[in-house]
Structure formats: C-alpha cells, structure tokens
C-alpha cells in the first residue's frame, strides 16, 4: 500500500481512498467471507469496514500500519455481522449430511462438509484468528498486535479453534446409530 495514498486519504482525499479500497478490498472480502462463511454477510462486513475506515482514517497515526488497521476494523465488522446472523439463525438446526465415504473423492467432499459445519460452530473470535493465521499466514504475534489482544489470547483462540474442529470432527466420525429403535 502506497504511503502517500494513505496520507492523502487521511487528509480527506476521496479519490486516494478509492484507490486504496481497490488495493485492499479483495483481501478484506476474502478474509470476511472465510470468517463468516456467508457471502452476503461478508459483503455487509466489507462495506461497513470500508466506510468506518474512511471515517476514522484521520486518526490513524502510523501510516505504515494501514493494512493491519483496516483488517482490524474488518474483523470487528465481522463480529457485528456474526452477531446479527446468530440472532437470525439461532433456531435453525444444522442438519447432518449423511452418506458413505469412499476413495473416489467423495471423502474429500465429506471432509470439507465436516470442516464447514465444525468451523461454523466456533465462536467468531476464534474463527477470525484461525483465518488470519491459516489463510493470511500471519504469525500469532502479528495477529495479537492487529486485533489488540494479548499474544496469549491469540494463541489460546487458535488452540481452541483447532481443538474445536478436531472434537467436532471426532464426534462426526462416531458411527451413527441406525434408524429405528434402540434396544
């Protein structure tokens, strides 16, 4: 990201900010979509983050931290969207996907489905750290700085996210009780 553009945008230059938006919006949207797992929510989070960033840009003191700063705004926008979505979907039960797995590739699809379901059950703050670490490839220290949380908190969120995925997958791997009555 061009420092001059950030400085111009900080002084109120909308054209400069538009250039910045086009430079960072793909990354922001990709992160939002992976955290929220919903294209519509991700779009809302992206829009809110971009407008909030514009509003608050005059108060960014370290221009070199622009990308980390705007990603933090995005993650908080994802928290808000997740909250709204949770209120909406609180009563929607996730239905398990049944079906055999085999070596012909369907097991890969099943694994993805399992991951999708398990990931969706994680708290959004754990999902955020997981995505920032595994998708953007950021080290935990950098994530902690970006989100303004202690490094230990970032580490524990990643740990719990990974454990949550493993536990959920283990639970799904348990043999299903066949239909009918239990003896």
């Amino acid at each position, binding site marked *: 990201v061009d420092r001059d553009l950030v400085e111009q945008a900080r002084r*109120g230059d*909308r054209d400069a*900010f*538009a250039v910045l*938006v086009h430079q960072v*919006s*793909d990354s*922001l*949207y*990709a992160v939002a979509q*992976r955290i929220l797992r*919903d*294209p*519509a*929510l991700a*779009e*809302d989070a*992206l*829009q*809110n983050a*971009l*407008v*909030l960033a*514009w*509003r*608050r840009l*005059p*108060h*960014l003191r*370290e221009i070199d931290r622009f990308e980390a*700063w705007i990603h933090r705004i995005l993650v*908080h926008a994802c*928290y*808000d*969207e*997740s*909250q*709204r*979505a*949770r*209120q*909406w*979907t609180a009563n929607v039960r996730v239905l398990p996907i049944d079906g055999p797995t085999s070596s012909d590739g369907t097991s890969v699809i099943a*694994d*993805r489905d*399992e*991951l*999708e379901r398990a990931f969706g059950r994680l*708290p*959004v703050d754990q999902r955020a750290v*997981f*995505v920032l670490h*595994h*998708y953007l490839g950021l080290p935990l220290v950098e994530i902690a700085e970006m989100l*303004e949380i202690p490094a230990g908190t970032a580490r524990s969120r990643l740990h719990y996210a*990974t454990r949550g*995925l*493993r536990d959920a*997958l283990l639970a799904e*791997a348990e043999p299903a009780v066949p239909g009918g009555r239990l003896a």
Partner: protein
Amino acid sequence: MTDDRSLERAARSWIEIGPTEAPERAVEAALHLIQTTPQVRALRIPWKFPNAFTPTRIATVAVIGALTIGGAVFIVGGPPVSVGVPPSPDPSHAVQPTPSASARSTPSPTISPLNSTGLIVFEHFTPRLVTRIEQLLPTGFGQELLPDVPGNQQTPSWSSDGARLAFAQFDPGDPASRQQIFETDATGSEPRPVTTDCRPPACLDESGPAYSVDGRQMVFVRWAGPLGGPPTSSVVAIRDLTTGAVTELESTGTPYAEAFIDHPRWSPDATHISFTRVLIDADAASTDSRIWLVNADGNGLRALTEPGFEAGDAEWSPDGTRILFAREIVHHWSGGGKGAGENEWIYTMAPDGTASTRLTSGRRTGAPSWTAGGSQILYSVLDASSIASGDIATPDIYVMEADGSNQRKVATYGDCCRWYPVQQPAP
C-alpha cells in the same frame, strides 16, 4: 482426518477454498457511501460512528405508530407482540449496506418495576450507528425523547430535582457540527443550549455534562483543538449556570496524544469531582482507564483506582458515602482494552478509593447508575452468547439492590444496544 497434522493440512487446504475477489457491487456501494460521508476529523469521544442518510418524516411517524400500537397490544394483554425492528426513527443515519441476506433483529421487550417511579432514559446505539436518547415506556419499549434533534445525542444526565436533563449532541452528517451541551426535560421540550461560549481552538467541543446537586453549576469535559482537526487536549470544566462563566480545572488537563477525560461527576456536597482518565493508543482506542478525584477548586488531584483495572463511569450515591463504578467502560466495549471481554463487573468503593466491593460477576456488566433515592442500581448486561464471541452484542437493562442482591432484568431487546440507563429523581 482427526490427528493434528492431517487436520491442520486439511484445514489449511479447506480455508483456501473460496472467493478471492471482492464483488464489485459491494466495493462500489461502499465508495458511493463514502462520497457523502464526512470523516471524523475531531474524534471527541471514541464511540462515535458515521452517519449518512436522512430518513423521511413518514418513516418516523410509521415507527412511532408501530411502537404505539405494539405497546397498546402489550398493555391490554394480547398475544405476545412480535414487532420487527423498523427503520430507526432518528433523523440522521449511517452505514447502510446494500440489501442482503444478513438478518436484522426483533425486539422482545419485558419490563420489571423498580422501587422508584421516575422516568428512565438511556442511550440507544442504533443499528444505523448513531446514538439517540430514548425514554423507557411502561410497555418496555423505548421511544425517542428528542426525535427532532439530529445526529448523536449522548450522555443524558438528570438534575437532582428531576426538572432538567442535560446531554451532549453533535451531527456527524454536518461537517461544521461540533459537540455541544443542551438541556431539556422529561417531556422532551425544545432543548436549550448550555454551551454558549465555545470557540476553537481553545474550545472545540463540550461533552459529558452533570449538574451539581443545587443545580447551579454543571461539570463537563471541554476539548481543545483546531476546527476540522482532532482534539489536542481535554480538561474537566465547570460552568456557572447563572452567569455562564466557565472554569477549567487545569490540574486535570490531558493531552489527546495519550489520554482523554470522561464522565465527570460532582460529589453530593459539591466539594469534589470524580472523573475518568482514559488512556488511548495511536488509533485512539482505549487501553486502560482510572477514576480520579479532584477538589472542586482544582487542587488535591488523586487517583482512586489502580492502573490496569480499567475503571470508569463513576457515580456518587445520593448520600455521598459510596462511589459506584464499572470495570471497563461500556462506551469502549467495541474498542476493547487490555482486558476487554473479561472481568467487566460493577463495583462500589468509598470516596477515598478504599473498601471496594464487587456487585456483579460472570456476565459482562457496565454503565451503572443509582436509581432515584439511591436504593437500587440500574445497569447494562451483555447476553451470555456475547461473552463467548466477544461481540458488542445486545446489552439489556437490569436493576439490582444497592448491595448487589436481587439482580433482575428491567427491559430486554433483540437488537443492539441500549445502555447508560439513568432514572429521573423525584420531580
């Protein structure tokens, strides 16, 4: 796939799947909004959020009508009322994403009576990201007290006789707007400006008003800074409401590069003023806060709480023997702090900072205030799911006895956010 290595491999591979380009319509919609959205050049208080559009008067009438009808049905004991959240009735608005599948919430008010009957008002931080002052109706619904006053209406504070209500206002949709203090009454009468002599750079904004018990003085936060720029400092100030003369307590002056002043309050005997000093980082996000005490003449400055405790929102009991306060300031819940999301409880302490007693635990609580007469405490509580996710979520209004017992809900809503409830003292 459940051993750690294969899990990590699969997860890395899986997380790569998905779109890598932002939809053009979302980017263009944001840029379109930005064309009409001013930047916050003077971040007078960090919980401000942007505004954008002005709603129609018809929408306002429709909203009030819906609330009235819903309330009437509720009163006559009809079936459970389900009223979708209409467009916010406030006359100035903010970020409006393009229509999408994202859900919007539904309020489900309940009401629990208090020992005292004064009108409760609170801040409603609306889904459109502006703060409006609302009154709590007997039905449990909130209704705007000042629907014709544009922009953000913040930090309502009653005079001790209940006849006046002071608040701070500014309109983010108006680049020339600066934060000023007004006063109205329980009926929402035409607000009268209290701020009359505030000119940059010596006075950029005024916020956080509170009356002295005799109603003759008002303590507030005065911000200095150039017009159109961020503030340079803040200070506790006192206005003589008879003459309009303002006295700044220089000992409390704080450069904005490191901190700002928040929530000043008179002791009932008017000899002392408590206030919060909020430390901020380079992005103006709060990192810590302490409650301080100063003599009304500006001498005797001393801290009442320890660094790292993130204490704030102090409120004196009517008899002056206890100070109610919160660990973490609700206005900064969204900004976070060192301990954001943890240990956000309500306490009381003696006016010298000793004998601290915790009144709440477990759930995130904040924004406390004494009810009229001081026998109970109003406050805000975040729902349990919010604690798990770290979201700002949907605080409900609660009440408890002054010793922390009998904690119960006064009103609950399905959407964010109602907080800083304050009850009108007996008129």
